[in-house]
């Protein structure tokens, strides 16, 4: 599913919250619940992984001529 990459973290979390609600709903057919459960577990894993990929960086944004450069913040301090 190439489109999956485009979904924001926020959207993923919202999807997960909705899945939980649907599974908690007694009217959801069991087969659907189990399929949703599989999706939900994958989504939770995905969310946690996304959080891990966030980068720890502090940069100074500078524009010289028409180019942007990023300098480490500590160097400027």
């Amino acid at each position, binding site marked *: 599913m190439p489109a999956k990459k485009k979904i924001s*973290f926020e959207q993923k*979390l919202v999807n997960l919250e909705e899945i939980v609600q649907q599974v908690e709903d007694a009217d959801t057919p069991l087969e659907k619940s189990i399929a949703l459960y599989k999706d*939900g577990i994958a989504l*939770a894993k995905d969310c946690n992984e996304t959080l891990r990929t966030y980068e720890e960086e502090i940069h100074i*944004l500078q524009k010289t001529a028409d180019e942007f450069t990023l300098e480490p*913040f500590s160097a400027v301090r």
Partner: protein
Amino acid sequence: MISRMVFTVTQVNRYVKKALEADALLAGLFIEGELSNFNAHSSGHLYFTLKDAGAAISGVMFKSHAGGLDFMPKSGMKVIAFGHLSLYEKTGQYQLYVEFLEPAGIGGLQLAFAQLKEKLEKEGLFDAARKREIPRFAQTIAVITSPTGAAVQDIIRIIRERNPSVKILISPAIVQGEAAAADLVRAVTEVNEYGKADVIIIGRGGGSIEDLHAFNDETLARAIRASKIPVISAVGHETDFTIADFVADLRAPTPTAAAQIAAFDLAATHAHIDDLRHDLSRAVSASVQARRADIKSHLATLSRAMDYHIGCFGTKLTNLEIMLDKVSPYTLFKRGFALTKITSVKELTIGQDIEITWADGKANATITEIT
């Protein structure tokens, strides 16, 4: 004959003009009064009358000076004007040529603030409908402020406390003085051009109203409104309100508060995801349990129904047996009846031999009497 000197009107007016302009006091003085007949001409020059209870002077402020005003004068406004007096030769009227004008009473900055606020509000720049939502999970936070101030340190510290893995992009800008407003506009534009930020914090630490003045700039207000990236303003202390605060998508009371809003709490988010996963597992197993219970209950119902049906059949069968029993010849034998295979007494004659059958055997009999 007395010799007369006759002057032209032009000569007189020119003479009076020179006399006025030669006077040291009239060459540069402050006059306080109320503006009336104020007219901002399309040429950019301002024409008005300056008056008090008992007198009036015509005044003009040329475009070259009027352009520097940070507020819009209006009729009825009390002002202090600085300028020189001269004569307008064409009408012979003397007037005040104003070079500088400030509102009397409240400060010029305050008035400029109130006027700009009203203007932008009317234009709809502060409308709630135009405010974008601040992303809940920004990955990159751009910070437009002085790279050497206390505010940037506070912002970084708070972001790191809440989320050690969010990217911080500092766009350095001058935050006070003459060059500040233009530099802040440049920074807002550059961060937008660069594009890789989810939210912008723009601000500075506390200071006097003059120190924060750059954040009351109209161009900056428009740049903030035009930003494609949502903007959180964080100017000074909680009690400071600037135009930037009104136009931003969200006003944070302080730079520290802005950092708290912009950076999501990483640990809490992980915990939330874990909670959701547990909820999901619990929900799905509850769902399976519920279905098991359903099956059990259906089985019980089914079995009860079967028992009932079987019971009904049993009763029916018993009834049939009873009925069958009633008509069975064996039942009749038991009650003393016997079988002769003769259906009428008319078939009999005296002395005839007949066979009589019981359940357990037979016997021969002879007819001796017919009645």
